[in-house]
C-alpha cells in the first residue's frame, strides 16, 4: 500500500517540510518518502519511540494531534450550543421526562429548574457558525473549525470522565489515546518525547488530573505521555546536576557509553546497545528541551498573536509550545486547562476562563494555518463532559447526555456544525457522537483502523475503542 501515492499528498508533505524543516532531522526526512510509515525506518533498538504498525490502514490525514482539554467540563450552553428555548424556560421546572432515571452528580435529590444561557450568542465568519459572544477569538476562527454539538459520554464525575475520554474506559490501567497513537505510529522526533502533556489553571475550581490520563497502561512504558512542567525543569531531571558543566556531563555520558559498549560485547546482550542509545537520547533531550522552551526565536507578531511572552505556564504559552512541539515531529500534545468546573457562577466563570483560553486557542489555529501545518495537525477542543441545562444555584452541574466540542485541521471539514441536542440542550438527538466514535475518528484521520490497532493483554485483544466506535465520516473533508 503506497500511502503517498495520492496526488496532493506528497506536495502537501513537502509544504510541511518546507515550513517546518528546522525541527526535522535526517531520520524524519527519510521516513517522509517511505511508503510504509513515517517512523518505520527507525531502528526499534535505536529509536526511542518505534512504530508498532508497519503499514497504515488508510491514507493518513493528520500526522499530529493537539488535544486542548478543557478540564472540568465546559458548559456547552455558554460556549458552542445556543438554546433560546432554555432562556424562555428560565426558572421553570425541567421536564421530568428528560431527567428521570438519568445519572446526576451534585444535583442529586434537588429540584431541577431550567437556567437560561448566561451569555449571548452570535453568528461568526462566512460560515455563520453560531457561538457564544464570550469567545470572540474562537469566533474569529469559525470558518476553520467543525463544531460538534452531539457528544455523549458515560461517566458523570471528573476523574472517571477524564479517564473515559482518554482511554475509552473508566477502568484504570488502560493506555491513553496519546499512548495508542505513539505506539501505533511512533514518533518522528528523536530528541523530544513523542507524547507531551502540559497544564494550566484558572477560571474555576481546579479539578485534579491524574497521571493515568496520559499513562501507557499495558503498552510499553516508553509510550507514556511526558508532562512538561511550568515550575522547575520542564521535563523532570532534564538538567545536569548543579556544578556539572555541559562538557562534563557529556564526558560522564561518553564514559558510561564506552564502558557499556565493552560490557555489551562481553555479554552479547542486545539490550546494552539499546541502553546506550537511550543515554544518547537523554543527553540530546538535555539540549533540545531548553531549545524548545526558549521562545526568543519567535517573531514579535507571533508572540502578540498568542498574547504571551512565554515562560509563564499560561494556556497561551502552552499553545505556542504545542505548535513548536508538533513542528518538531511530536505525535501527540495534550494541553489541559483546569478551569471549567462551574458549579456556581457560570456567567463569571466563563468570562474568566475566556480571558485565559480564548486568545491562545485561536492563535494556535491561525499560527498552524500560517505555518502550513494545520492540514496535517488535528486540533480538538473540548472537555470531559458538558453541563446541565438545569441550574445549580448560579452554576451548572455535570452533564453527559449531550455536550459540544470542536475540531479543526487534520482532515476535518472546516466551517460546519454537526449534530444537535434537543431544544433544552439535554440529550444529543441528532447524529450523536459517542466518545468511542470520537476515538475511532481520530485514529482514522491518523491512518489507523481503530478495530485493528490492538494489543493482547490478559488474554484479550484490547483497543482504544473497546468493542465499540464508528468513524464519523460526515465531519471529514
Amino acid at each position: 500500500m503506497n500511502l503517498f501515492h495520492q496526488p496532493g499528498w506528497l506536495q502537501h508533505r513537502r509544504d510541511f517540510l518546507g515550513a517546518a524543516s528546522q525541527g526535522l532531522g535526517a531520520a524524519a526526512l527519510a521516513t517522509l518518502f517511505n511508503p510504509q510509515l513515517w517512523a518505520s525506518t527507525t531502528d526499534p533498538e535505536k529509536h526511542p519511540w518505534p512504530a508498532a504498525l508497519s503499514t497504515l490502514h488508510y491514507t493518513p490525514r493528520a500526522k499530529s494531534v493537539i488535544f486542548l482539554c478543557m478540564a472540568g467540563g465546559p458548559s456547552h450552553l455558554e460556549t458552542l450550543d445556543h438554546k433560546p428555548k432554555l432562556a424562555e424556560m428560565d426558572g421553570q421546572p425541567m421536564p421530568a421526562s428528560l431527567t428521570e432515571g438519568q445519572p446526576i452528580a451534585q444535583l442529586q435529590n434537588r429540584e431541577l429548574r431550567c437556567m437560561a444561557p448566561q451569555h449571548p450568542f452570535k453568528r461568526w465568519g462566512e460560515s455563520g457558525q453560531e457561538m457564544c459572544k464570550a469567545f470572540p477569538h474562537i469566533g474569529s476562527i469559525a470558518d476553520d473549525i467543525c463544531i460538534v454539538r452531539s457528544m455523549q459520554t458515560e461517566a458523570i464525575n471528573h476523574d472517571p470522565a477524564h479517564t473515559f475520554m482518554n482511554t475509552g474506559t473508566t477502568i484504570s490501567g488502560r493506555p491513553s489515546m496519546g499512548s495508542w497513537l505513539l505506539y501505533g505510529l511512533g514518533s518522528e522526533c528523536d530528541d523530544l518525547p513523542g507524547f507531551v502533556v502540559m497544564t494550566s489553571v484558572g477560571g474555576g475550581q481546579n479539578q485534579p488530573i491524574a497521571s493515568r490520563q496520559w499513562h501507557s497502561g499495558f503498552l510499553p512504558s516508553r509510550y507514556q505521555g511526558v508532562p512538561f512542567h511550568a515550575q522547575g525543569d520542564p521535563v523532570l531531571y532534564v538538567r545536569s546536576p548543579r556544578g556539572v558543566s555541559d562538557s562534563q556531563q557529556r564526558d560522564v555520558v561518553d564514559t558510561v557509553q564506552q564502558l557499556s559498549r565493552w560490557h555489551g560485547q562481553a555479554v552479547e546482550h542486545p539490550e546494552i546497545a539499546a541502553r546506550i542509545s537511550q543515554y544518547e537520547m537523554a543527553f540530546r533531550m538535555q539540549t533540545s528541551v531548553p531549545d524548545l522552551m526558549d521562545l526568543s526565536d519567535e517573531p514579535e507578531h507571533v508572540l502578540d498573536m498568542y498574547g504571551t511572552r512565554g515562560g509563564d505556564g499560561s494556556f497561551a504559552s502552552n499553545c505556542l509550545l504545542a505548535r513548536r512541539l508538533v513542528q518538531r515531529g511530536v505525535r501527540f500534545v495534550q494541553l489541559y486547562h483546569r478551569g471549567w468546573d462551574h458549579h456556581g457562577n457560570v456567567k463569571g466563570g466563563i468570562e474568566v476562563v475566556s480571558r485565559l483560553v480564548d486568545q491562545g486557542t485561536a492563535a494556535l489555529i491561525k499560527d498552524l494555518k500560517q505555518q502550513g501545518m494545520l492540514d496535517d495537525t488535528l486540533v480538538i477542543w473540548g472537555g470531559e463532559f458538558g453541563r446541565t441545562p438545569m441550574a445549580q444555584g448560579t452554576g451548572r452541574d455535570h452533564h453527559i447526555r449531550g455536550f459540544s466540542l470542536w475540531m479543526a485541521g487534520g482532515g476535518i471539514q472546516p466551517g460546519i456544525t454537526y449534530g444537535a441536542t434537543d431544544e433544552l440542550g439535554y440529550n444529543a438527538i441528532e447524529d450523536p457522537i459517542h466518545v468511542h466514535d470520537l476515538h475511532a475518528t481520530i485514529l482514522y484521520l491518523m491512518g489507523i483502523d481503530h478495530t485493528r490497532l490492538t494489543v493482547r493483554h490478559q488474554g484479550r485483544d484490547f483497543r482504544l475503542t473497546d468493542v465499540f466506535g464508528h468513524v464519523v465520516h460526515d465531519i471529514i473533508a
Partner: protein
Amino acid sequence: MRSLTRSRGLWFINFGVAIIAVISMTHQSAANEETIDYNRDIRPILSNSCYACHGPDTEDQRGGLRLDLRESAVDQSGVIVPGHPEDSRLMGRITSDMTFLKMPPPDSNRPELTEAQIDLIRRWIAEGAEFDEHWAYTELSRPAVPEVSDDRWVRNPIDAFIAARLQQAGVEPADEADRRTLIRRLAFDLTGMPPDPEQVDAFLADSSEDAYSRLVEHFLSDPRYGERMAQYWLDLVRYADSIGYHSDNPREVSMYRDYVIRAFNDNLPFDRFTIEQIAGDLLPDAGWEQLVASGYNMLLQTTEEGGAQPKEYEAKYAADRVRNVSDVWMGVTLACAECHHHKYDPFTIEDFYSMAAFFADIREPAVGRRPQTPVLTPELESKQRELEAAVAEAQQVLDSPTPEWLAAQADWETAMREDGFAEPELGTWHSIGPFTASSFEEAHETSFGPEQELDLKKTYRDGQLKWQAQADWKDGQPISLTGQNAATYLTRTIVVDQAQRLPLRLGSDDSIQVWVNGQRVLEHKVRRAVAPDQERLTIDLQAGENQLLIKITNAGGDKGFYFAVADGGLPAEIASILQTEDDQRDDAQRAALWEYYRSVAPELDQARQRLADAQQTRETFNNNLPVSLVPRTGPPRTTRVLPRGDWLDDSGAVVEPAIPDVLGTLNTNDRRPNRLDLAHWLVAPDNPLVARTMVNRLWMLLFGAGLSRTVEDLGAQGELPTHPDLLDWLASEYIDSGWDTKHLIRLMVHSAAYRQSSLADESLRKRDAENRLLARQARFRLDAEMVRDSMLAISGLLVEQQGGPSVKPYQPAGYWAHLNFPSREWTNDTGVSLYRRGLYTHWQRTFLHPSLLAFDAPSREECTARRPRSNTPQQALVLLNDPTYVEAARVFAERILREGGADDDNQRLDFAFRHALNRTPSSEERQVLSDLQGRHLQEFRQDLPSAKALLSVGDWLRDEDLDPAELASWTSVARVLLNLPETIFRY
C-alpha cells in the same frame, strides 16, 4: 548447538543424532511425528480464532455452536466428525476461499488460521478430535519425575523435568555461572540488593561443598528477603498510600505492608497468609495481625469526589475486589465477566457477581473517607491497660470520701446557701476565620492553627486571617458567621473565683467542637441550621481564668452559632438540692451533690488534676495509636447481577456468594458462605489454581519469566506452560510442603537450571530466542525499587530499618501540581527517611514518585503480576540527574577516597568496582576512568565553586576533610559506575 565433546554433552549420544525439527519454539506445537495434544496444539487456536463467537459466552453464540465443548462440536450436525476431517464441516469453513463461508469471517477481526494451524486441526480430527479440560483447571496430581538417561547435570527433580525436555530437543544446558554472577544473582533475587563485598569475598574463597547452600540460607534468613518478596506481593494486591481516584488523598495502611514483610520473613504458610488477608477479621481467634492482614480488602481505589454517586461506586468497588482476588490467587481473568459471560474461559456473568457477593459484608462509605482503625499490638495493649489502671486508680481516690472532705462539703453547702453563687465573668468574644478547605469533612477535621496554639496575636493564611474582637455579640441569640467548607474559631475567657462546673447551651451551623483550657470536651459533626440549645454540656472550670475555644464548621449555605450559660451558672438540679434541707434529701440527691462538690472542691484540686492528667495521657496514647484500614462489617448488602455491567440497571437476579460454577460449589449447608469460606476454598488441597498460579509467579521471580509466561492469566488465552509437568510437580510440592514458600524457593535456587549461566551462544539464541527450553538463565534489568536500593547500598547511604509509615525521599518540586482537594505539595523528608529502601517510598497512585515510575514501578491502581521492563531516556535522566543518585555518587566518592587507599588511584578504582560491581576493573576501564577523573580534577580545581555546588547536592553533609575538587572528580567516576547497565542488570 554445542560441541559434543564436552563431558555433559554425552547424553546426546543416547538419542543419536539430535533432531532439530523445524518447530517453532514459541508455539512448541506438535512436530510432524508427535501426536496432537489438545491443550497444547488445538485449544489455543480455537480460543484465539473461534471462541469469540463459538465459545463459553452462551449469550453471544453464533449458530448455536460451541467449539469449547465436545458435545456441541461433535454432534449430528457434522461440524466435527472424529476420524474424518474430510467429512467435518469445520474443515470446509476454515479452508474456504469464499468470504461468506470463510471462518473466522474476515470482518470478525479474529486472526485467520495459518496453513500450519489448519493442518494441526486436520490431524487432530483425524486422530479422533479428543477434547481435554483446560490444563489450569484440571485436578492437580503430582507427575512422576522423568527418568533422564544422563543425570549428571541433575541436582534436583526440577532439573529432571528440564533435562528431559532438553534431551528431547537435543540442546545442552548452559554451564554453571561463575561464582560472582551466582552470588549477585542470588542476592538480587532473594534480597533485592547487591551482595556486600565482604560476602562476595567469603563466597569466592569458600570451596566447601555446602558453600552455596549456606549462602542461600543466609539470604533466606536475611530480613531483606521479606522486603524483596513483599515488593512483588504489593504489586499484586495493589498496595498504595493514597486512595487513587480524584483527590487521591493519603491513607494510612503501612501496617499491612509490614505484615506482608513479616509474613514472608517468618515464612508464614501461604494458605494461612491467604486466609488472613481475605478473611483475617472473620477468624475466630483474630488478633491484631489478622485484622491488619484483612486490610487487604480495603486496598482498592476509592473516591471522595463530591457529586459521585454512591451506587456507582459500590458497583466499582465490588468489581474491583473480584478482579483482584481472581487476579492474585486464581490467575484467571474473571474481570472479563463483569458485563457478559467470559469469551474464552468458562465463567459466567453470574459467577462474577456471585464472587462479588462474598465481599458484600464490608461496610464502607461509597463516597468519602474511610475510617482508620487503631491497631493494638500486644505491647500497646499492655501499655493501654496500664494507662487505664492509672485512670481507675485516680478515679478511685476521688470516689472515696474522707471525713475531712465531707466536713468541707458541709461548709461549702452552708456558704452557698448563705452567700449565693458568684457569677462567672465572661470575657469578650474573639473570632477568626473562615479557614477554607476543599470539603466540609476536611474543614471539620483539619487542625488549623488556632486549634494547635491559641494566641490572639497570631495571624494565618499570609496575614489574611486575624483575630477580631466581637464586643457586640450577645449571648443567648444566634450569631451569623461566614464561609463555605470552612471553619471559624471563637474564643473567650471565663473567670471564676473557685473551681466550679458551668452548664452551657450551644447551637451551631453546621458542626461544632469545643475545647476548655486546651482539652476537647465536645465534638459533634453534623449538618444543621443553628438553633438554641442544640448542645447541652457542662464544663469544668478551674479557679481563675479559663479559656473557651469553639470551632464552627460550615458546609454550604448559612453559618452561625449560639451560646448561653444555663441556669445562671449553677446547674438547676444542684441549686434545687442546695435549697433542700439536708435531712430532706434522698440518696440520689446526696450523691448528685457529692458528685458536684467533688468536681469543684478546691481541696480536691490535686486529686482531680491527677485524674485529668491520667485521662489526658490515656487520650494522647489512644489518639496516637498506629492505625490501618481494617474492614468493618455488617449484614451483607444485596448483590445483583448488573446486566452489561450497568449499575443503573436493577433488573438483574439477586445472587448469593458462590465460587465460579465450573470450579465447584461451597458446601456450607444453609449458612451463607462468607469470605472465610472463599479463602478456605482457595487454599483447599483440591483447588489446583492457586498453587499453580503462585508457583508460576515464584518461578518468574527467579527465572525472569513464568513457566507459563502469562503469569497473570492461566486461562484459555494464557500461554501453555513450557514445562507443564514441572509446574504441576512444583504446585504439588508447594501444597504438600504445607505451602512452604521458602522451601519452594530453596528448591528452585538449588537447581542446576537456576545456577546456569545466562550467556548463550549464538546458535542457542537463534534456536531458542525466548529461552523456552531453559537451557540458560535469564538476564534482565532490576526492578525500580532495586535500582534505588542498589545505588544507596553501594554508596553506603542506605538506612535499613524495617517497616513503619511510608517515607518521602527527594522529589522535584511541583510534581504534585495537578493534585487538588486539597492542593498539596510533597515535602521531602529529612534525615534517615531520605535513605530508606524503595518499597517504603510513599506510593501516590495518581503521581507515583517519578524515579520509580521511570523504571516501570506500577501505579498500583490494579493488580500487576508482571511489570514491564522498559528502556527509556527517562531512566538515563533519572540516574544521571536525580539528586538521590547525584548525592549517592558523591557519598560513594567520599567512601572511595576515605576507604579506597590513600593517594593510589588504582586501589581506589579497585575499591569502587568491588563495591559497585563486585569485580576488578579491566585495564581499559581503569584507563578511561582515570582519564575522566584527571580531566575533571583539573576542571574542578579551576572552578571550585562548581565543585562545591556539585558536592552540595542532597542533604547528606559533605566530608569537609576531603579536597573538594578531588571529591568532585571522583564523584564523576562514581556517577559513571552508578549509570552502568551492568550495575542495574541481574545476570
